[in-house]
């Protein structure tokens, strides 16, 4: 069997894979996102940072519609996300997501975790799904853990499995929601190394993270958020050396101390 059916049309380098225009979101009276405008092109690597409660996670959770936005438009590869859409699952299959708490399926082995998506929803035969899962586990450097259950692994290993699980779906875009925040310090680098490798392979990535070293090394653009707004966005060099906004300066002072 050839490659999986491609659900989202291929983009040229120029048109954005993801675009948000005038996006607003409220939780009750609290405005979580206000007037978000953001475009992400194919193969672009974006790091979103900002103080806690600034809406970073909410923003990326809106991109695969784990959260609903109330105003504005979000397009993923030309498909608009809205509450009455019929094909959200098809859009989601092309967007990989890595969570802070891994969210691996504890009753399935590492290999089964990775095979589940391709086998159950992409319609790929078991053998092929297995081959692909093993290949992805090799990519994140834990093929030897394939037959273990998630809670037998360390946090860093679990997060790498979670990345492999997403990659098995051969997504167009990867979303990372604070992927290293729940890890013990000594395990952060193994996950970041995996992400850097993935970035170098040309994956389109949107990462919410506090790892500024990673941002500096990998990001094409850093987006800084506060109070639900995008305060400024810039190349890493400009962002770190020449921050424009006072809030950015304060944030950088605190985080780079």
């Amino acid at each position, binding site marked *: 069997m050839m490659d999986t059916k491609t659900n989202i049309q291929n983009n040229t380098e120029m048109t954005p894979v993801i675009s948000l225009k005038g996006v607003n979101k409220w939780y009750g009276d609290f405005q979580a996102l206000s007037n978000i405008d953001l475009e992400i092109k194919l193969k672009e690597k974006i790091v979103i940072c900002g103080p806690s409660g600034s809406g970073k996670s909410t923003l990326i959770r809106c991109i695969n519609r784990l959260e609903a936005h109330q105003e504005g438009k979000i397009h993923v590869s030309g498909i608009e996300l809205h509450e009455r859409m019929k094909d959200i699952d*098809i859009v989601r*299959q092309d*967007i990989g*997501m890595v969570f802070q*708490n891994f*969210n691996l*399926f504890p009753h399935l082995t590492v290999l089964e975790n990775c095979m589940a998506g391709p086998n159950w929803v992409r319609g790929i035969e078991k053998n092929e799904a297995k081959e692909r899962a093993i290949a992805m586990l090799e990519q994140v450097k834990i093929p030897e853990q394939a037959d273990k259950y998630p*809670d037998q692994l360390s946090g860093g290993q679990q997060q790498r499995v979670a990345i492999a699980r997403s990659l098995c779906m051969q997504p167009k875009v990867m979303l990372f929601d604070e992927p290293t925040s729940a890890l013990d310090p000594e395990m952060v680098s193994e996950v970041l190394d995996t992400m850097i490798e993935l970035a170098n392979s040309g994956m389109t990535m949107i990462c919410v993270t506090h790892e500024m070293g990673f941002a500096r090394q990998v990001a094409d653009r850093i987006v800084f958020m506060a109070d639900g707004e995008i305060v400024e966005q810039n190349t890493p060099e400009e962002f770190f050396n020449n921050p424009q906004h006072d809030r950015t300066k304060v944030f950088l002072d605190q985080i780079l101390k």
Partner: protein
Amino acid sequence: MFVDTVIEDKALHKPVFLIGLSVTVLAIFFALNFTNTLFGEFLRPVIGDPTESGFFGRLAVSLVLTIIFVLNLLAISFTRLKVQILIVWVELLLLFLAFAYSFDLKMSFIQSRIPLMISRGLFTTIYISAISIVIATVIAVIGAIAKLSNNGFAYAISSFYTSLFRGLPLLLQLFLIYKGLPQLGFMVDAVPAAITALSLCYGAYMTEIFRAGIQSIPKGQWEASRALGFKFNLILRKIILPQAIPIIIPPTGNQFIAMLKDSSLASVLGVWELMYLARTLGQRDFRHMEMLLTAAMIYWALTIVLEVIQARIEKKYKQKS
């Protein structure tokens, strides 16, 4: 459960507690007065004729019993935990048997009736319970999913159902079905009526158990599944239920055990199950206790079998995860 690593002194080994316990036990034995029982006979060499021994005899009997009781406790307290549990179990069982024996049972009567009780009564009880358990489980799965759905009709129907059938006594439901349906032109036999009532009632309880079990699975499991593009049914079947089942098993086992015994209510409809036979077989000869105690032991044995099965299944799921 967490067992603390610091061991406290055993209460039994503290003199104050031991004396207090002895005095209390002595008072109880004295109040209950065992002088005219087997124990009095044993002490005949000391107290003379038990019936005429008076205060001294009564005190002597109570004192001897208290000493036996307290020494027994002390002896047990020095053994290992598992041995303690075993000895206490055996002693309580012997006490229960002694209690049953004190009714002056006619064993030959029990022996002559037991074949019918097992071939007819036990069989019918198991038959009714097993079918009801299967139907109730199916109802529970459907009811729980309906209660968790966004569909207004599904939620309303299932919550009305659980409210109604948890709100009525099972006996009343049994009569409503058995006496009510024929008036509407649907003839129901006693056994199908009993199965219907048991299934509906326990289906309602188990709906709540299944719902709670499903809801106890972390939201992150749903989110990760949704992010992979899984649809609701797939998530439920492959991700949520396999994780919820180990949580659901212990309370469901309880329900099975309760249902097994509530099947005895079918006796009021004249179904020849254990309870009905226990009541009727002894009636003619005024041998009620023989039959009731026999039925009691059969129910108890059945329950123990269910408990063992439940423990096995729990163990199996524990190994898996």
